[in-house]
């Protein structure tokens, strides 16, 4: 599987309702040792939301203090963090969550 198979996919809850699209993928360096790199990066979760370019531009991060206008327009952050374990299937641009999934709400945009 490639990262691009996940990014941009539409995410559906078990009841079929859409949560939005995958905006980014959360990695943690806690996997098996990989040569000079150290502990391998593992996929722990996906950030899901309806915002468009925002996540990609990094404008929603709190350390970005400006510009105000761009943060207003593009600063919308992804809404939910979904643990990888809550994903039931990944295929053809669609990700389905398991019935027990409980996406963490990330909160409203910070301006």
């Amino acid at each position, binding site marked *: *599987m*490639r*990262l*691009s198979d*996940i*990014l941009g996919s539409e995410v559906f809850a078990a009841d079929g309702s859409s949560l939005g699209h995958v*905006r*980014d*993928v*959360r*990695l*943690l*360096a*806690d*996997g*098996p040792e*990989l*040569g*000079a*790199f*150290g502990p*391998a*990066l*593992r*996929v*722990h979760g996906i*950030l899901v939301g309806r915002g468009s370019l925002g*996540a*990609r531009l*990094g404008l929603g991060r709190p350390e970005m203090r400006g510009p105000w206008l761009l943060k207003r327009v593009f600063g919308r952050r992804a809404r939910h963090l979904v643990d*990888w*374990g809550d994903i039931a299937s990944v295929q053809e641009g669609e990700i389905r969550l398991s019935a027990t999934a409980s996406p963490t709400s990330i909160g409203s945009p910070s301006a």
Partner: protein
Amino acid sequence: MNDRRELLAGLHLLDHQILDCDGWAAGKVDDLELDVAADPTTALPVVTAILSGAGALSRRLEGRLGRWVESVDERLASDRVPSQIAFELVSEIASHVSVTASRDDLETGRGERWTRERIVGHIPGAGHAPE
């Protein structure tokens, strides 16, 4: 080694510049290879390689343009498509992604090598820095 324990793949890795052990530019992080079965204990996918070059890029461009680029790359390539850099070789993830190998030893270096050996290297003056 990377500075942070936590990274966002899209923001901190994708489309970033790759530098080789001598500081030469060696392509962009066009995609990442994820191995779902590498870590059976937790079933979390492991990032095993950086994909770089036209073959990897084409999938992300989608549409007709993407398919065209992919088919051209497959025809031109003599080895594995798309070209990869194993994650073992990554030494640092900052604003650049640094690797420990030389660009000439990487699969991703074949385009640069080809252009140098077939075309640019034959033009007089190619071997001297401008004066």
